[in-house]
């Protein structure tokens, strides 16, 4: 009986796995112009998200199914972040299937597109649920492989296929590095199961373990765009269609972060103190390089790429802290980051419909359409971490987690870098609010969906920061 009761908590996961097959299957039996797959996709994603919210938190060690599928607080909250990202990505992409944007032609096959997003989301869910290296590896691959296809979705766009080629070459190299790391970890522990690896690591270290850690960090460094391995990100973010860029910057980043969290606080937990300087070095260089790169950008998606590289650096700072505090801070920040980032991308989507996605296209926005300009300002201030908004509290928890184990140098460096970051976020706001337009502006048209999503997300960014009881849900789950 208890095993039957336990099955309840994986219903959302099973539905998410079936979801792409259902959507793509319905699309096969429908008329070409039918709206049915789109409606079912909406219903399905939202239903899964609502079901996730029924899973009670604060369950201690988490529940295990078939000994290899773990559902714990971190996993449930990560699932919610990933589902929010999938839903918003789906809504953002809808307009790109109705008209071209940013000089790129219209996209086709929305059902398969949504199916690919769902597969990537399921990959993220697998990563947070994994209890052994094999599931872990498969989850990471399920999360990455659809992303390659999504990047190249616009077959008529030359930049898209170039971006996808770069992405898949880099991504496969990352996979090879990770696998090599996994194989050394397996050789070191003699088993694939996380708990046994943890015991072996706690019993004593050896050069084999350090080699494994090095390879694993190289591999995940590619996916998380950490310092020496970030070079593909600006190209891919710029070449991919805008909704794919948004999904990449949230879902794939969240999955990569979750991978690191599971690894550092799972099998590698006994040596966290020893690898802390290494993590601090990666975090510091990554956020510095991201901030420097963003300073000189003129195209919006490339700018967002560097901004998201810097954000990855900030999130890495939290990994230095104790387990529960770091997990809480990272989850909270991922919620905030997802909402702020999607708000920015929705604004870029509206602008990109009629103009190029550059800083210059933002000129005169505040006079022409103050609502959108306010939404853009809210999202940029939140990403920069200005006090009343959600981004500030997110960053505060990240830095607090890093500082609580005494890594003051890296926290101070990150805070100083935040000033640098503020400069380029303000530049973007300046082009929207201060700069005069050069001549006639094409009018901006908003669909009902875009208007309601922008209003909701703007309110969410303000409220999550101002009303802490919303976030208390997250913190309560960890008894923090």
């Amino acid at each position, binding site marked *: 009986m208890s095993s039957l009761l336990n099955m309840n908590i994986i219903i959302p996961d099973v539905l998410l796995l079936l979801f792409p097959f259902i959507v793509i299957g319905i699309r096969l039996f429908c008329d070409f112009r039918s709206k049915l797959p789109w409606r079912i996709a909406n219903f399905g994603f939202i239903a899964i998200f609502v079901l996730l919210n029924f899973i009670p938190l604060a369950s201690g060690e988490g529940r295990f199914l078939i000994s290899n599928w773990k559902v714990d607080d971190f996993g449930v909250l990560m699932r919610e972040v990933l589902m929010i990202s999938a839903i918003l990505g789906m809504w953002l992409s809808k307009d790109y299937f109705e008209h071209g944007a940013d000089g790129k032609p219209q996209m086709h096959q929305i059902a398969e597109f949504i199916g690919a997003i769902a597969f990537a989301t399921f990959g993220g869910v697998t990563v947070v649920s994994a209890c052994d290296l094999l599931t872990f590896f498969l989850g990471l691959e399920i999360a990455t492989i659809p992303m390659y296809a999504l990047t190249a979705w616009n077959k008529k766009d030359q930049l898209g296929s170039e971006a996808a080629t770069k992405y898949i070459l880099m991504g496969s190299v990352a996979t090879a590095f990770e696998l090599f790391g996994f194989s050394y970890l397996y050789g070191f522990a003699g088993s694939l199961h996380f708990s046994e690896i943890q015991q072996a690591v706690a019993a004593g270290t050896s050069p084999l373990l350090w080699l494994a850690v090095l390879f694993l960090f190289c591999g995940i460094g590619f996916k998380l765009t950490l310092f020496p391995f970030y070079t593909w990100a600006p*190209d891919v973010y710029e070449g991919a269609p805008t909704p794919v860029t948004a999904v990449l910057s949230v879902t794939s980043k969240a999955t990569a972060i979750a991978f690191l969290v599971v690894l550092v606080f799972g099998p590698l937990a006994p040596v966290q103190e020893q690898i802390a300087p290494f993590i601090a070095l990666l975090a510091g260089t990554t956020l510095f390089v991201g901030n420097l790169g963003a300073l000189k950008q003129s195209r919006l998606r490339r700018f967002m790429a560097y901004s998201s590289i810097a954000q990855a650096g900030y999130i890495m700072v939290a990994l230095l802290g104790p387990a529960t505090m770091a997990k809480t801070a990272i989850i909270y920040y991922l919620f905030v980051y997802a909402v702020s980032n999607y708000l920015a991308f929705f604004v870029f989507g509206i602008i990109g419909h009629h103009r190029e996605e550059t800083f210059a296209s933002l000129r005169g926005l505040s006079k022409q359409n103050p609502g959108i300009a306010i939404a853009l300002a809210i999202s940029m201030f939140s990403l920069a971490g200005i006090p009343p908004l959600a981004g500030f509290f997110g960053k505060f928890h990240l830095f607090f987690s890093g500082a609580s184990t005494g890594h003051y140098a890296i926290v101070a460096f990150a805070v100083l870098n935040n000033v640098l970051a503020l400069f380029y976020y303000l530049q973007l706001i300046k082009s929207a609010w201060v700069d005069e337009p050069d001549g006639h502006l094409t009018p901006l048209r908003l669909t009902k969906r875009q208007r309601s999503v922008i209003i909701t997300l703007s309110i969410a960014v303000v409220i999550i920061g101002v009303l802490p009881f919303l976030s208390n849900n997250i913190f309560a789950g960890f008894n923090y």
Partner: protein
Amino acid sequence: MNLMNCLILAFILFGIGVWGLMRRRHLIGMLISIELMLNAANINFISFAYFSAHDSTAGALFSIFVIAVTACEMAIALAIIVTMYRRHKSLDADQLRDLHD
């Protein structure tokens, strides 16, 4: 034939893969180099499973999964490279220059 020999073989194969990836400018050549790197990891898994691990089935299974996953990855990679070839009419990696700072 002991564990160390196998590990050194795998490491050398991995090195050849990395070297090939940096030297080759042909996209298919780069894919083959990546395939070498992935298979080097497979050799590691199998040799650990054979010589040292107490859970030896897991290691052998892992390499089979890796082969399947690699097949998916290469299928997507080739599909993307075909779309790129239709646009660029070339498989030279140096042609990938439209996206830059």
